């Protein structure tokens, strides 16, 4: 095989990228349609389906719920995941190895099984209200990402800097916030963003936990698609894509996007 890939391979790669981008372009096109049914290319341009997203109260409510759950869930996951990631690296020798594996377990369990298990124990078994069950589910859904991404950036942190600060008289908690945290800032931001987007897009865990009156945006989109086949869903999809682009732009500014690909 020579230094540069041959023409056939490049052609296949180009087709794969067209396959990846095409459907997203089509969704954007369909969202701008003027007709009451889904077509592409759109016949006449309008923003009426974007207005329709906000005219339907179920969409308004679920957008708010999804953002609340994503922000709160990510926040709680950071609150318990950051100390855990710190301890796993700082006390690597003292802590047993299975503890690190424990935080990877949620990835091994199928999300849909996890959602069903929470329905059985929390919603039905313990009578936890919908919002509480969703919050618990999403916190655990994103916890592995938080622990893993922050651990990865702590792995290259030299803990002797922290020890030096403490031996020079700095309080441990103050040292953590002034010495450790600024050094893993990139990891914490990346963890926040990955967790936020994962939570915002989740279907499998929320599927069982949503209830009458309280639902999340992806579940509402699923319900809408199964009843109506109009461009409203294309518009709400485009809004979600805009949010993703905005978040990615922030990552690009602060860290560079290749960080997320690791």
């Amino acid at each position, binding site marked *: *095989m020579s*230094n540069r*890939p*041959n023409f056939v*391979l490049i052609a*296949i*790669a180009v087709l*794969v*990228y067209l*396959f*990846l981008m095409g*459907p*997203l372009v*089509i*969704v954007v096109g369909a969202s701008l349609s003027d007709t009451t049914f*889904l*077509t592409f290319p759109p016949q006449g341009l309008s923003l009426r389906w974007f207005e329709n997203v906000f005219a339907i109260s179920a969409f308004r409510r679920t957008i708010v719920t999804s953002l609340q759950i994503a922000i709160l869930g990510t926040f709680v996951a950071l609150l318990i995941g950051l*100390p*855990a990631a*710190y*301890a*796993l690296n*700082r*006390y690597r020798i*003292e*802590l047993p190895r299975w503890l690190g594996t424990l*935080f990877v377990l*949620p990835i*091994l*369990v*199928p999300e*849909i*099984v*996890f959602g*069903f*298990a*929470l329905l*059985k124990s929390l919603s039905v078994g313990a009578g936890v209200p919908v919002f509480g069950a969703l919050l618990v589910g999403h916190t*655990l859904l994103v*916890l592995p990402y938080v622990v893993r991404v922050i651990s990865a950036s702590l792995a290259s942190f030299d803990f002797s800097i922290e020890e030096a600060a403490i031996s020079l008289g700095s309080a441990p908690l103050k040292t953590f916030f002034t010495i450790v945290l600024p050094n893993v800032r990139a990891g914490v931001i990346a963890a926040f963003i990955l967790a936020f987007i994962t939570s915002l*897009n989740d*279907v*499998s865990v929320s599927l*069982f936990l949503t209830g009458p009156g309280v639902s999340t945006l*992806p579940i509402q*989109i*699923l319900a809408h*698609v199964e009843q109506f*086949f109009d461009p409203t*869903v294309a518009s709400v*999809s485009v809004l*979600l894509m805009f949010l*993703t682009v905005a*978040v*990615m732009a922030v990552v690009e500014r602060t860290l560079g*996007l*290749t960080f*997320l*690909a*690791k």
Partner: protein
Amino acid sequence: MDGDAAAMRSKWRLLSSGLAGWALTAPATLAVIGFLLVPIGIVIAGTFMDPRGIFAPYVAYFNSGFRTTVLFRTLQIAALTTIISLVFGFITAYVVSRAPSRLKSLLIIAAVFPLLTGVVVRAFAWLIILGRNGILNNTLVNLGIISEPLELLYTQGAVIIGMVYLFVPLMILSLAGVLENIPQDVLQASSSLGASPVATFWQVLLPLAVPGLIVGAVLVFTGSFTAYATPQLLGGERQTVLATLLQQRAMVSFDWVGASTIATIMTAITISVVLVMSHLARRINPMAT
């Protein structure tokens, strides 16, 4: 005496820092145990406490022709999705890894973006394309290639296309890094020693990429084996898979034992695949020898 005191002090330090470690990991540990392991344990244990007998739910599952069909359909869809994603992901990742650096980061972004777009949005896109009055049917009818719209949705093909669409970016990203780390010199050495491009591919490039291929294959297989939204939207009732069957048993039929049995089968297969493949990856990793 002095040595004893020092030993005591270091023992005390080890113990107290161990305690600090436990204390800091405690909230996350308790959350995973209490809200993940215990609830899933209850689901699994419940299937073995059936009054009809210990394995009765599993006997009932495998005695049902419909349910065994669903299991094999799900395995088949996951396997085909994995193979197709492997082939196209590998080729694309190879081209990406050899691209000039500015183009490379652009191509990586283009692979990350669909991954960050939700599964519902990505399945919905294929609904517009493959629908009865979708883009593909309209184009084919307008071109005069077909006279009647084809039934493309609610077929196994539609589900597999939707799944490949979900997982090819994951494959590209997990392979691009691995392929990039394979030194150019190795490939050049192979060809300058007279190996044909095909031989270089099979005997040098592919073996070196095996760890990445296994990681990618595990991610894609377990992901497509347990996916819900894509088979639900693109496959419907006709292409019921384990995930959609689980949802129906739990939320429509309120058959908790049946749903728990499906959940246990899904978990067992997922964990087995991960364990077997990671064992395999460790055994045949050429870098380790």
